[in-house]
């Protein structure tokens, strides 16, 4: 982490993502813990994976990394497959299995602009730190010229997530 990407993650959108991460931890920890216990009792193993998925998503949200989205997508797809395997088209049965996870999916997807900007910012910082290739210079100049104000202003880095 460089200073650049740190400051990239200080916007309101980022903090929203952090709040989401907290929610995911609040669900994910007991789901993981309970899931381990359930498996030990001879029950389903699903909740172990779901709990891990939630916690990993939370971790990468805090790091403002797009990996959060991919991990949650994976968790969600795994959940849908498991839910239909367990209960098929029994829609009342699917309420606890799919509704909250779908809401979380929407929220996670909503953080994409934040995560992408942060990723971009990280990439630029990396390029700046690790070598001034002509392309990198040009791209920086390019981006700099596009941004008349301070290059790392949090205002301009922020997506329209707010």
């Amino acid at each position, binding site marked *: 982490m460089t200073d650049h990407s740190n400051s990239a993650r200080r916007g309101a959108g980022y*903090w929203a993502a952090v709040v989401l991460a907290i929610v995911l931890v609040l669900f994910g920890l*007991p789901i993981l813990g309970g899931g381990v216990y*359930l498996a030990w009792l001879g029950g389903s193993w699903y909740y172990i994976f779901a709990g891990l998925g939630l916690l990993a998503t939370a971790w990468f949200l805090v790091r403002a990394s797009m990996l959060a989205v991919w991990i949650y997508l994976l968790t969600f797809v795994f959940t849908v497959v498991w839910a239909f395997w*367990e209960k098929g088209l029994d829609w009342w049965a699917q*309420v606890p*299995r799919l509704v909250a996870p779908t809401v979380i999916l929407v929220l996670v997807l909503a953080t994409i602009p934040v995560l992408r900007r942060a990723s971009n910012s990280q990439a630029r910082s990396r390029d700046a730190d690790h070598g001034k290739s002509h392309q990198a210079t040009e791209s920086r100049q390019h981006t700099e010229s596009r941004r008349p104000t301070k290059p790392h202003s949090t205002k301009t880095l922020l997506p329209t997530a707010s």
Partner: protein
Amino acid sequence: MTRDLSRTGVAATLAAALSLSVCPPFAFAQDIQPAASDNTPASGADPSGEGEAVETGETPQGVATPAPDATPAAEADDAPDANANTEVARAPATPREVGTDWPFWGGGPNATRFSPLDQITPDNVDQLEKVWTYRTGDMPTEKTEGKYSPEGTPLKIGDALYLCSAMNVLSSVDARTGEEIWRYDPEVAPEAIPYGASCRGVAYYELPDASEDQACATRIIEGTLDARLIAVDAKTGEPCADFGDNGQVDLWQGIGKKVPGWYAVTAPPAIVRGIAVTGAQVKDGQAEDAPSGVIRGYDAVTGELAWAWDLGDPDITGLPPEGETYTRGTPNMWTQATGDEELGYVYLPMGNSSVDYYGGNRSEAENEYATSLVAIDVTTGKPVWHFQTVRYDVWDYDLGSQATLIDFPNEDGGTTPAILLPSKQGDIYILDRETGEPLVPIEEIETPEGGVEGDAYAETQPISGYHTLRKDDLTEADMWGVTPLDQLFCRIAFREAAYEGIYTHPTADRRWIQYPGYNGGSDWGSVAVDTENGIIVANYNDVPNYNRLIPREEADERNLKPINEKQSESESGSKAEGEGDPQAGAPYAIDVNAGWRAPFTGIPCKQPPLGGIRAIDLKTGETLWDRPLGTARRNGPFGIPSFLPLSIGTPNNGGSVVTRGGLVFIAAATDNLIRAIDLKTGETLWSDVLPAGGQANPIVYEQDGREYLVIQAGGHHFMETPVGDYYIAYALPEN
């Protein structure tokens, strides 16, 4: 930034709300009978594969001997403890038929809940409109708050309805206009309320030899919460001076020390051959030393005790000997019996001993008769046959459904006079009315091992090879919730409990799952039978209970005391039946989580549907259609209604009426709706919102050429529906 946070917060709440949307509040009706005294079946296994109709030594009478004359002979004696004269029964009378009238709790004398009226049909039922509302005025006071569950069904004879309120206030109401004709308040004290204030109905009796203007020539007889049998003039509501002690008979006689709320009547008596037969509800779960389950027959004219059947002491035929009581804690009958005027029998669906979940102290006689259908000859007061549906019942599977008299098709193309018996565990039995022999296959299933009483339990149980309302055993995947987290909690609870299917025995070291729960299967609403088309309509519950026996030391620490030891009213609050019931005398108390509700959300751990309604072919026992009963409109997590008009299947209490017009009328579910269902398809064709819960059986009758549907909207404390005092009538618009 704040906007982002609030968005997340709103979204999370939405997630919760969406998921929560359909959790039916779960209350179980009380008519789950006693947790207390257990009648333990002596040995467990049943020898024959043909079920057991056991002759008890009395020769079954094909036709009972008519009494020589109309005047009750027995009552000549003055000695209070003399044996009751057993010849008071009268000649067989021709009972009133259902149709224009609704003369019995179950419709006609056969208790089919079938009406031959056909003015209202699937084509015009959507035009039904409310035509009158009658309010009894009997609403809970501060003292009785949270204890009302009226469960009332009216009678209709002639031009009047006869009904009772939760606290036994009687009224007669004009059948066409709903205006009150008379009212009589027996002034039942609030302390008399057992599990809930209920009066499921009254009985009507017409003197065979009286002149029309004779006082009490036609009379209404009611059993009250404070255990009285009351008779009033059907025309005026005045107590019948010639009945008992100025219109009332004290049922506490011979029972023992009077403890208000422990012994109460909530069902109408069955009147057969001039004998009013009544049992009583013994409040569940209190103690083994509880009031007796004695069944008594009283002369419907004079109120004299004609006979008493105390299964613990066959020598008692009237009052018990001086200074003694009827045998304490024996199985009782709290539900509606069915009379057979022709045979002179009364059919009693019996409950369990007074301690439900532990059977170690039960007597042989208790084990013989508990959870059985017993046929008593009303001319002698002696049992003729009995058929046991659960042996060594430790699940509170007492018989709650009134039995229905039908003609059952037999192999020769004819029919056999039969009796149809639904049960809480879901099995539907069909027996020969005269002999009690099963007319359908009875299968023996092995019960799971385990439970605190080990070998004392019955090894096998008789299940019906004809039909059961029971569904497949529960699995972990059937657990439910709002979010994955609370569903996970329920799944863990499932794995932690003892469960091996139906008849899993009670455990103390951990919870055990009882499925079906003690609300059925079928409960006091019973089933309706369209005898013309040969279709049974059964509404049922589909809900487990999550229970644990509490060892006595722990129960003492929790200060669980039976009703006769409670210090104050506040100790006996309105809690679910079985929730911390002491079962004094037994080594364990009992904790029932009725409906298996999760903490915090209050949502049942089992997924919907939690109740349904089914049509069954009478001849073959096959299911014709089966649908969830009840919508989600009133239910939601944390008790917040979701207003979703989606069919979900809620717990239900109360039964249905089937008509020749091809409709099933039923309320019963926790969505406060009364509805009309197409008998052929099961589709709901019409519904209306009731101002309170509809946990009662409706009736259908005709007045001045118009077909009426009447339902009580009384609510129910344990079904968690709003309480009211309404009787509401619907009819097609007059053209």
